[in-house]
């Protein structure tokens, strides 16, 4: 054995070793102390914190979204349904290479840049291990292709979700409206309570009844305390509080009547509103053009949205409640009643109509729409039947504008009708105060001549005109218009907003005049009653879109199509016992009697022959209760 040339001293060796080992033992003891202190710190000092952390890991409170309430028409036809939609979702934490996974998915299902862009946006707002949807409404074939390739894509899954489905598509887009994904803007308006209510829910009513009855339809969120593992898989439910489903709505709307109104309007732009005279219930509510509300439910594509928002026909615009039009001559029955009540005119009042009207001390000439006039002995009946302007100018000149304004107000003009739809516009009926405040100008006599014919400052929505007509048909009982007939089977009582006291004779006279519009040989609205075996009363109207210079003649050929007059017609039927009131607006339709009146006729032909509403209501209540129980 080779030895070192130094002398080996076992004792020195042992001493050195013991010396070093003792120091090492001290080191070991110190480090063990560090470990014990560490465990003491983790397990005793900070026990509560880590206990909470571990429970947070393990127990997840999962919101359980309630089922949204359904929407039926008056006869139980389902307008808004919930259907299972299969969505492709990704748990980001389980995907190693997101880019590669997205590319692979792109080969299996249709995926456009918009989907991916929206997905990446949603990805930023997620909670850890939350599945983030990438594509909605997978087809059967797409689901199959994903399933087959599932093993290649950990973290990718197909999830079922209930989404809104509007079976009748564009027919009820402007009344029922639609739901859409909760947006950042929705979120920023949320109260604390809203944040709680919408846990687990991805959709919110955006327009129409879906929006105005949002809280009713939504229901109450439920909760589940679930134990999950690290991969987010639910192992068991520890505790569950069931969600309360949203409440179902039944509407006054009638699908058949709605279809008739929509067909009658055809491809023209415009609106039709039909109201049940005895309740204020809205029977038909059409705004055209319309759109498919299903496009919005899971998020509309950029291209689809651009097509809708850029269209000159503005299909997203709800003409029936948001469109404010000069009501034109449709105001004449109301004005006539006002004149009668104010004692300005009577059944015997007759005027001479040379085809124009001149205010004293005013060179301006106000032309009647018939250049040669309506004759020398024009009374109220004829003035309504033939829509004689001079008769009403003569009356307006003698009538204080504030009186006229009050009368219009009784019929709901110039203020919101209070219908249960969002975004309603109020229209306008001017007064002295209004003109001073809004325009800073005094009231001129000429303003009254415009106002009495529903021109100038006057604006009204088609809904307001329908309410006005229904109020006339009711002889002064002004109901609040209502879309929803019953909530969860409980019938909503009609609400009278105002009762106008007027002399029965005056009502008779106005009815007679409106009947003459439809039934007299020289009436402007004969087409509203053609071939019907009951009596219809109505009034036509024409609203100027562009002002016509003094002395110029209106030449429809020369005007751009979109600058032509709007055609209007309001009517109710049957005259002896009115049940339905209708307002029709056809944008750029020119002749109220020619274009709008036939639309009203179709609605009457559909509605009036049906059994009386009272009987029907009783049947309906029974039917809808049956549907709820089933």
């Amino acid at each position: 054995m080779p030895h070192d040339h130094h002398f080996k001293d076992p004792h020195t060796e042992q001493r050195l070793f013991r010396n070093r080992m003792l120091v090492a033992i001290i080191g070991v003891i110190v480090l063990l102390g560090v470990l014990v202190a560490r465990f003491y710190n983790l397990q005793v000092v900070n026990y509560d914190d880590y206990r909470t952390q571990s429970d947070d890991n393990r127990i997840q409170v999962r919101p359980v979204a309630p089922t949204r309430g359904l929407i039926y028409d008056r006869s139980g036809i389902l307008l808004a349904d919930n259907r299972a939609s299969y969505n492709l979702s990704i748990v980001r934490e389980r995907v190693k290479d997101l880019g590669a996974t997205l590319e692979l998915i792109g080969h299996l299902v249709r995926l456009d840049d918009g989907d991916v862009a929206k997905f990446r946006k949603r990805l930023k707002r997620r909670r850890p291990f939350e599945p983030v949807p990438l594509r909605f409404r997978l087809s059967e074939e797409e689901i199959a292709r994903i399933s087959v390739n599932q093993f290649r894509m950990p973290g990718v899954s197909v999830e079922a979700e209930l989404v809104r489905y509007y079976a009748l598509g564009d027919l009820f887009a402007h009344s029922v409206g639609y739901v859409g994904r909760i947006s950042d803007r929705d979120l920023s308006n949320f109260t604390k309570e809203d944040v709680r209510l919408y846990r687990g829910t991805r959709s919110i009513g955006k327009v129409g009844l879906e929006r105005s009855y949002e809280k009713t339809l939504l229901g109450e969120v439920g909760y589940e305390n679930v134990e999950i593992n690290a991969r987010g898989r639910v192992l068991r439910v520890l505790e569950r509080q069931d969600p309360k489903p949203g409440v179902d709505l039944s509407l006054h709307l009638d699908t058949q009547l709605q279809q008739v109104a929509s067909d009658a309007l055809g491809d023209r732009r415009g609106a039709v509103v039909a109201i049940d005279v005895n309740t204020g219930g809205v029977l038909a509510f059409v705004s055209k053009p319309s759109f498919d509300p299903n496009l919005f439910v899971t998020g509309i594509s950029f291209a689809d949205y651009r097509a809708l928002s850029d269209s000159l026909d503005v299909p997203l615009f709800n003409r029936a409640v948001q469109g404010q039009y000069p009501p034109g001559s449709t105001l004449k029955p109301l004005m006539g009643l006002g004149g009668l009540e104010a004692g300005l005119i009577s059944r015997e009042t007759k005027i001479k109509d040379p085809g124009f009207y001149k205010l004293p001390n005013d060179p301006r000439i106000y032309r009647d729409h018939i250049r040669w006039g309506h004759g020398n002995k024009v009374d109220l009946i004829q003035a309504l039947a033939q829509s004689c302007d001079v008769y009403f100018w003569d009356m307006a000149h003698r009538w204080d504008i504030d009186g006229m304004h009050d009368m219009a107000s009784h019929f709901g003009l110039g203020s919101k009708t209070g219908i249960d739809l969002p975004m309603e516009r109020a229209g306008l009926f001017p007064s002295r105060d209004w003109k001073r405040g809004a325009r800073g100008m005094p009231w001129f006599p000429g303003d009254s001549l415009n106002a009495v014919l529903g021109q100038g400052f006057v604006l009204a929505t088609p809904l307001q005109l329908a309410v006005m007509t229904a109020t006339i048909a009711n002889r002064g009982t002004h109901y609040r218009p209502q879309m929803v007939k019953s909530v969860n089977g409980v019938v909503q009582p009609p609400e009278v907003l105002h009762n106008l006291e007027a002399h029965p004779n005056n009502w008779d006279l106005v009815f007679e005049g409106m009947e003459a519009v439809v039934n007299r040989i020289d009436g402007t609205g004969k087409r509203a009653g053609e071939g019907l075996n009951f009596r219809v009363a109505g009034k036509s109207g024409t609203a100027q879109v562009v002002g016509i210079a003094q002395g110029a003649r209106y030449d429809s050929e020369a005007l751009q199509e979109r600058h032509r007059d709007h055609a209007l017609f309001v009517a109710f039927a049957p005259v002896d016992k009115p049940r339905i009131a209708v307002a029709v607006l056809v944008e750029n339709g020119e002749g109220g009697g020619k274009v709008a009146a036939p639309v009203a006729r179709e609605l009457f032909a559909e509605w009036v022959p049906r059994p009386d509403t009272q009987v029907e209501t009783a049947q309906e209540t029974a039917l809808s209760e049956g549907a709820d129980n089933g």
Partner: protein
Amino acid sequence: MASRDFSHRLSDAHGSLRKPVSLARRLHIDVPLLVLLLVLASVGLGMLYSASGGDMSYVRRQSIFMCLAFLGMLIVSQVPLDFYRRWSPWAYLGGCALLVGVLLFGTGAKGAQRWLEIAGFRFQPSEVMKLGVPMAVAAFLHQRAQPPSLVTVIGALAIVAVPAALIVRQPDLGTSILIAASGLFALYLAGLSWKMIGAAAMGVLVAAWPIWQWGLRDYQRQRILTLLNPDDDRFGAGWNIFNSKAAIGSGGMYGKGYLQGTQSQLDFLPESHTDFIIAVLAEEWGMRGVLLLLLLYVLVIARGIYISFMAQHLFGRLLAGSITLTFFVYVFVNIGMVTGLLPVVGVPLPVISYGGTSLITLMAGFGILMAVGTERRRVHF
């Protein structure tokens, strides 16, 4: 000198030939150490059953590993110490050759080459060097006068540096540091002067910045950063530590009960049956369980130190001391990592963690310890 007298008395008392040689001693079995290791192994199997989610197949396989490892330990302990001393230079050189082979022909995963495949068998040469390096250093120092001269120190450092450098290249920084430590422990125990130790410590401090800047790989830097700010990246690199701390902390003083640990049973705890197994123990048995386990380790270490004190030769003394201290370092590094005191390095908890290779090496180390402890007494002056 008092200390000299003390050592004389000690050596006289225990070096006595009058004592009858027991059966265990003749079989080269250190009974206290064997009992402690068997207890540890049982604890390990019990924890493994829980950590694997009640999967008996893990327990069965680990039991087989343990049988093999204990058998290996008893075989290793039969070999005379002189044999190891004489053959250690060759074993060391062979080990270095294998490490070179790993770099040239090795296989592995995740960008690291750690295994060598020979005739269908896969093994890690770095495991061999866990014992090969301290043995070589001890044998080298055994021949030389103590305290080691500067030349001797440089020689010993070279013995340590070559395999350490080769293993760093695999790359496997953790194993490299631990192997280097085992060699350096032998050198330290041989009586390395405090001056040199101080100088080395200064050197490490000075070198720290360049090593951080150029010596470490990105993932290694990341692990150290994660240690410093574990909450920065809860769902990324900090996930392991966040969850192991939550597991340990939520265990409290008394634990959640065997098989009741939510962190480990619900898979929140990564690597719960291998490197992070003490978190399972801490969660389910609480701090009292941890203290009992630490007590078992302390007893093993105490026995190892006792054996090293009683060793007949410098070689056995240094080797036993080095193996014992390295064992403690494994325990400390593993627990320090799991509790978030040290960066995440892949060091299993000795005897408890699942895995065959490291267990066999570890038990071979204890076999050498037993060989040292049961060496025939010889009178020497």
